[in-house]
Structure formats: structure tokens, C-alpha cells
């Protein structure tokens, strides 16, 4: 069911920021990437303060936060145009900021006053500095779009054209730096799954990635997008420009989803079934070696839970299956807090639909979470108050963002922040993907339940 928000007059507490903010943090997360913002003076600070509020204590990067180059355009540029200010800014950026790729991300104001950013950038073609342009006005959309626009610009403007395909090489898309607060660990978790099949992975943002390898990413035989919504523009650009096919799969969290992920990717790349199965067997053996330790407490402390999931397109799609299949929980409602196009909505639905039907949660697309209780009661109606016997949604946990704590308290549920904003957790390399990530998530979920023990 979709609560169509495109006609809405407002979004309540948007869970993230705009395309420019997403572009800025994405460029910062690239190996030695240098953002050059062509934007009004507050845009960089706004992105940094947003990270400060919801980013799991991560702000900035190598060249991030207030260190990014920014033209800081003023009323004068609004009247006379910002091309000259941008030109001066690029020229001087090359003298001060040391990087391997310079990306101009332009914001709302230059787009509205008609600055020709591409034309200004093309004047620097002989500078010897790699410089590309992404048009990322905030009015185009949210942070995740900014991520996609930057990767699309990289695919079209930076990645080498016409190089030979390399068997066993793949690119990993779909995990948005910073706005998925667990991005670092999630990227590593998926990389490890792919590496277990013998694949060579360019993941753009992991510690081992380099700009030289990103330039060679056109040699990949497949692009793997671990999202129904993010990275699709980039994957399409790779397909169009470099002839690389792509697969969109849900974020593989935990054992059941990881096994399916390995099978799907393995089959797409023609990896022998016995090789895939033996990897899965080995990983599951280890996973359940640890999980089996829980069997006493799972019963003794009655650790099965109803769950309400509130998250971005990746978590709303992936968490219910993990809860239903790996933990044996009851995900009742999953709310995707983003405006998605129909194709992306269908991919999220498909990820939910792998759950057997009687355990499948109700799926709602709504950026305004003020109606959470209404959705929940539709799914799990309250008995009349004077009934002596009640069947509330309890025991329950809300897996959402730190904004959902009040809602969780209102239904007497435990709470864990996973989707942006994550104000109340410190996250460095923690991730929930793959087998190891599944174990981490079990620890965190049960940890939230036994917090007061």
C-alpha cells in the first residue's frame, strides 16, 4: 500500500537531507575525493550539522564537513551570475586541496540563476586535474539521489571507456555513505560475501578502494546493486556507457538473505553451484555455531518479538526478512519513509514478498510517520478498552531511527536506531550485512531488549 506523498504539501521531519548534501558526503567518502560545491554559503554546514545530529557520531572525512571547497555564492552572483566565482574557486581549489578526483556538485541557487557549470568546468580540461560535474540541486530530491547522481557522473565522465572486461570483477552499488550510518560495515560485509565466491570487488568507498580502480570499473562484468532504490541511476549509466549489466538485490542481512544473495550473484556470473553451496554451508555452520548459544535465553527470557520497522528503502526491504527467517520474530508493519518511484517500490515489495505469506508484514510507503499508530491499528486492531482480556502488540520492538523513540515508548516497545537519523549510537565500522553483520544485529536487537536487566 502506498500513501502517495508526491502530492503532499509537506514532509514531516525528513529523514536525511537533500541531493546536494548526499552528493557532498558521497564525494567525501570516495578515496581522496574533493567536493567543490557551487552553492549558497550554508549548504556545506547544513550537511555537516545534519551528520552531527543523525550520523552515528560520524562527521566529515578526508575532505568533508566545512573543509569542502564551496563557492559560497551571494546576492551579487544571484544578480550577475556565478560563473566567474566558480571559475576562480576551481582554479584556487587546485592549488590548495589535494585529491585524486574533484567533483563539482552544484546546488539550488546556481541552477535557478542559470549558471553554466559544465561550460566553466570544461575550461579546466587541460589542467591535468580530474574534474567532473554533478548537477545536484536540492530541489531534485533527497540525499540518496545525490549519491546516485555523483556515481552516475563518475560512470559517465570519469570511468575509462572501451577497456576490456575482466572476468570475476564486479562493482558494488546501493549503500549510501553516511546516510546509511552503517555504510562502512555494510559495504565490507557485502564485499566479503562476494569475495567468498572468488570475485574481485570495486566498492568505491571501502578502505581498500582507490580512484585508479574506480577509473577501471568499466572492466567489471556485472554491477551489483544491493538496493531497490539507490545506485540504479549509476547502474543504468554503466549499462549504457560501458555495457555492464546490473542486478538489483535486497541488502543481504543475516544467514537466509546472504545465502540467497550468494546464489543469485553466483548464478548470474556462472559460478558452479557446488562452489556456491559449499561457501554457504561453511558460512552457515559458523553463523549457527554462535547463534546456538542463544537457545536457552531465547526461551527462558521469551526473546521472540513483534516488530515494527521504519526505515529507508534498504532497511525497510531487508530487515523484515531477517527478523522472520533468522530470528523467528513477527514483523507486523514496515514503513518505508521515502518517496520512491513505482519500479523501486516494486523492488521493495518483492524483497518483502519472499517472506512466507502468514508472516509477511504490512508494507507502507509514507514519509510522514505521524500516522504510524493508525497503520499499526489497521494491522493489529485494539480490543475495546473494557475488555478484561487484551491482545496488544506486545512484546514488541521498533527498529527505526532515533526519531521513533517516542512512538516506541507510546506502544511500550523496545527500540533500536538503525536507519538515519541515528542520534543515540556511535558507529565506526559496524555493519549488518552478510553473516557477520547478522550476528551483530542479533546482538544489538537483543541488547536493546535486555538493556535494563
Amino acid at each position, binding site marked *: 500500500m502506498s500513501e502517495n506523498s508526491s502530492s503532499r*504539501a509537506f514532509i514531516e521531519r525528513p529523514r536525511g537531507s537533500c541531493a546536494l548534501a548526499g552528493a557532498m558526503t558521497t564525494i567525501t567518502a570516495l578515496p581522496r575525493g574533493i567536493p567543490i560545491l557551487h552553492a549558497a554559503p*550554508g549548504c556545506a554546514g*547544513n550537511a555537516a550539522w545534519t551528520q*552531527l545530529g543523525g550520523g552515528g557520531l560520524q562527521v566529515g572525512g578526508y575532505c568533508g564537513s566545512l573543509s569542502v571547497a564551496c563557492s559560497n555564492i551571494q546576492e551579487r552572483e544571484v544578480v550577475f551570475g556565478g560563473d566567474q566565482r566558480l571559475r576562480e574557486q576551481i582554479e584556487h581549489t587546485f592549488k590548495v586541496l589535494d585529491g585524486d578526483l574533484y567533483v563539482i556538485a552544484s546546488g*539550488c541557487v546556481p541552477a535557478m540563476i542559470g549558471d553554466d557549470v559544465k561550460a566553466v568546468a570544461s575550461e579546466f580540461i587541460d589542467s591535468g586535474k580530474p574534474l567532473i560535474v554533478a548537477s545536484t540541486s536540492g*530541489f531534485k530530491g533527497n540525499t540518496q539521489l545525490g549519491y546516485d547522481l555523483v556515481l552516475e557522473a563518475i560512470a559517465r565522465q570519469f570511468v575509462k571507456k572501451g577497456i576490456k572486461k575482466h572476468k570475476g570483477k564486479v562493482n558494488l552499488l546501493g549503500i549510501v555513505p553516511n546516510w546509511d550510518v552503517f555504510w562502512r560495515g555494510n559495504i565490507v560485509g557485502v564485499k566479503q560475501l562476494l569475495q567468498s565466491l572468488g570475485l574481485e570487488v570495486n566498492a568505491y568507498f571501502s578502505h581498500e578502494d582507490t580512484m585508479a580502480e574506480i577509473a577501471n570499473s568499466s572492466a567489471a562484468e556485472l554491477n551489483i546493486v544491493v538496493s531497490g532504490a539507490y545506485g540504479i541511476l549509476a547502474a543504468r549509466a554503466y549499462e549504457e556507457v560501458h555495457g555492464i549489466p546490473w542486478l538489483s538485490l535486497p541488502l543481504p542481512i543475516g544467514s537466509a538473505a546472504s545465502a540467497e544473495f550468494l546464489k543469485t550473484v553466483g548464478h548470474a556470473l556462472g559460478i558452479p553451484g557446488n562452489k556456491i553451496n559449499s561457501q554457504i554451508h561453511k558460512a552457515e555452520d559458523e553463523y549457527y555455531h554462535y547463534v546456538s548459544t542463544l537457545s536457552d535465553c531465547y526461551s527462558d527470557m521469551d526473546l521472540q518479538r513483534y516488530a515494527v520497522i521504519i526505515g529507508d528503502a534498504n532497511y525497510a526491504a531487508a530487515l523484515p526478512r531477517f527478523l522472520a527467517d533468522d530470528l523467528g520474530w513477527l514483523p507486523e508493519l514496515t514503513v518505508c519513509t521515502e518517496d520512491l518511484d513505482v519500479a523501486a517500490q516494486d523492488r521493495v515489495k518483492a524483497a518483502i514478498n519472499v517472506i512466507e505469506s502468514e508472516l509477511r508484514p504490512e508494507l507502507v510507503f509514507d514519509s510522514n510517520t505521524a500516522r504510524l499508530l493508525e497503520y499499526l491499528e489497521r494491522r493489529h486492531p485494539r480490543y475495546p478498552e473494557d475488555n478484561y482480556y487484551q491482545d496488544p502488540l506486545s512484546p514488541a520492538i521498533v527498529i527505526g531511527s532515533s*526519531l521513533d523513540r517516542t512512538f516506541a515508548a507510546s506502544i511500550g516497545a523496545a527500540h533500536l536506531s538503525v536507519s538515519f537519523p541515528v*542520534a543515540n549510537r556511535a558507529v565506526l565500522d559496524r555493519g549488518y550485512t552478510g553473516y557477520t553483520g547478522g550476528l551483530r544485529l542479533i546482538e544489538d536487537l537483543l541488547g536493546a531488549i535486555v538493556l535494563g536487566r
Partner: protein
Amino acid sequence: MSNDYFKQTVAPRRESRLKAGIAYGGKVCQFAGSFGCDGKRKDGFRPCMERNERGFSQGSICLLLPALGTIGTLPDTAVLLHGAVGCGSSMHAVACNVRSGANARWGKPGDASWMSTAMNEVDVITGGEAKLARAIEEIDATRHPSTIIVVSGCIPGITGDDVEAVIANVQERVKAKVLPVHCEGFKTKIWATAYDAYYHAFGRHLFEKPDDAPELTGEERSMSVNLLNVSSMGRIDEAELERLLKMFGLKVNIFPVFAKPQDIWKVTRAALSISTCPTHDDYLLTHLQEKYNIPYVLRHMPIGIENTGIWLREIGKAVGKEHEVDIIIKHEERVLRKALEPFLPFFKGKRIFLSAGEYRTLATANLLVELGFEIAALRPFHHDEFAEVEYSKLVAHSKDFTLNIANCQPFEEANLLKKLKPDLFMGHLVGNSTASKLGIPTHTIYNIGLNYVGYKGVFELARRLYRHLRNPNFHRTLSVHAKLPYFDSWYAEDAFKFIKTAPEQEE
């Protein structure tokens, strides 16, 4: 200064109103000499011209951010951001402060309430007036806040949305009081214009006593003072100032953070307004004096021993308690100085580097000089005439040092830090990582949750700095591994290379 400004729909930019500037690099004695701190005024020469700028610049903030820092705390209020979906997403940081601030004041964490009209590609072409009107009506009908504050960003400033007209029109149909705060980021380089922007809106829309509210009695009014806090102080700082003001028998009305919108009119019924920072409050206090005859105390910030005393003396004088104030100050200073003794040998001669809002930077520098530190450099965010008095105090007590007026610009900071190698850095929120990555222990210059102001603030800050200086290993080891994004060649350059000094103008 006349405050006819409040008759206009929009507050003026500080570049025009105060000739405020953001770009200067040099030495403090030369700078302070230019406005006569050392008695050698060079008439007409202003080193930090409002038209100075940079040929290379880094990310900054705009007036929208500090504006939301205050507006976002008002209870029973919906903050409606009119702009692109990310404009004002800094509310996520404000939300953390609202949570802890409400808890500190009322024993229960609060939830910030904000919405965005999320203007899209269609709205940019058609304008956002209809959408804004619908948003106000829907929020009023479904959320029932007492107040809806429409904060407009850059986009409506270019599409030319007539936010005032939309509000005037919608107001007839909605229950909530609706007011506009204009925060088009491209319109001013001086983000302190933020304070003027929302004070302007409060003054125009919330200063009338509601008909159903009982008028304050003469006695209530005579002992009531406004204490202004625009969210640079947490509850713990407010409590310290309240403690001091209560010694005069004054009843303190804290405004505007966490102020209930329906009570804001009471600010016009006080006997005196007390500021802790002229950068924040001059615009409003002038208005309160001119329109409501409320005198004010504005010139000093109660940070540091001497400054807290000066601040108290001005208040004592204003309320006719000069004698009491002397006794209070004498007692407070004696107890504080004794408490500080164990720390002072440790601080002696250690060199500090500060970067933040102009007045806060200067007052904190004065405090640190009192503790025995030496100043390596200061980087105030901007400059206007109100700071001259604070520069005078510094120049009197300190050796010459590097002064860099900059709206952040960490590349200049990194260059200076490498050369000056201070022992301690104090920067604004989201402004400490450059120093930290260079191995310098850091402490945020204001953090709403920690105590900085009044006598207690001096002691608490000393306690914290002692702790940071005792074990700076986080920063030391980080600096071995972390790399800043600048070419090595940049550090050999003049830090002020990209500052373009505007030609002097006829006034």
C-alpha cells in the same frame, strides 16, 4: 541607532546595518589600533571591511542554521521549512538539543517538531505559494500547534514567493499563530543576521499581549528581568546566571530558547533586559528600549572572572544595587580564586588558539588569559563594532598575536596551526577536527550541556581543560595517522593569501 527596522517585513543584513565583515588576516595590535584600542586611531581605516572576501573559500553555514538552533526549541511550535527538502535538515542536530534541553528544564525529553515543504522541480518553476498555504493549513488541522513558524530558505528568495502575503492570507483560516522568518542564505555573509531575523519576526508577531492573558502587576514587572539566551547556553549556564541574578532579588524571564510562544509577549513587560552577547541581541534590545522603554545591559559577556564582574556591576547599577553587587563579586571571586589555585601552575604559559563567534572568542580568550594561558591566535567568525571593547581588554592584558577573521575557512586555520603549534584549541561546534587531526587537544567553545558562564563556568572550564591537557593522546596519536586535505605546499604559503581586501570607501 533607530529601530524603524521592525516596520519592514525583513530585517536588514548586518553588512548594511553594522558594516560587519568576515575576512581579515594580521596582528591584533594593528587591528585593534585601527579603532583606537591603544589610543592611536587611524581615522576611517577599517581593516575588516564588509566587502572583503576570499578568492578561495570552503564550506560555511548560513543564517538558517543558528536561526533553527533557537526556533527549533520553542515548545508547542511547528517549524515549517519552506525550501528544498534538505534546507534546514540541521534540525537533526537541533533535535538532540531539544531532547536534552527539555529534559534539563522539565524532566522529560522533548521531540522537536519540524516539516519541510520540500520544494521540487515543479515548485521551482511554478513558485511555492500554494504549496506553502496548503502545508500551513494541513499542519494546523492535523497537528494543532499553538504557533507555526515558516522559515524560508534560498529557493523562495529566488522564485519570489511572497511568504508574508501567503501567511496574511492563511492566518484568517487557521487557529495557530503563523509567523515568517526570512533566512535566504545567499542574502548575507554574516550568519549572525539569524538572530535579527527571528527577533524581527517575534517582535512583529508575538509581542502583543493576547486578550485572554492577565496583565502583569506593577510589582511583578518591577522585579522581572529578561535574560536572553539564543541557545548558545544550556540550562546549566542559565542556572548559574539565575543564581547570580537572584541574589539581587530579581525574577528571571529566560528568552527566547524554550520560551512558550504564548508567553513571549511578557518580554515586553520587564524592568530590564540582560544580554550575555551583543552579537546576539543588540537588534532586539534596541527595539525593546525604543518601543517598550525597557532599558538593557548589553556590552559584556559573563565569561571570565573580570567579565562576569563587569556584567554584574552593569546590572547592579541598572537595578540600583551597586552596593550589593560589590559584596557579591568580592565573595564570589574569593571563593573561585581559591578553587582555581591547584590548576593555575599547570596552565601557566600554555598557548591557546580559539575560533568561533566573535564575542564568544574574545571573552573566552580573556578568561583563558586570566587562567594563565597565552594567546597564540584568534579566529573570530566576523567583526563588528560591538567587539571593540573586548579587543581593548585583550590588548591590555596580552602580548601581540595573530588575528584572522574568518567564517570558518579551515584551510587558513590549518596553515596557522602548523606554524603556531598551540597547546590547546577551542573551536565552535563542528570546528575542532582540523586541530584535532593536527594533534592538538581540543575543547568545544560552547556545548549546550556544559557550563561556561558565570563564576562556576570559569571553574568548570578550568576543570575540563585540565583534563584535556592531562591526556591529549587521542589527538596526538590521531595526528600520526590522519591526513588533512591540503597540499604540503599550502602550509608554506601566507595563510591570508586568498583574502581580497576591498578598496577603502567613502563613508
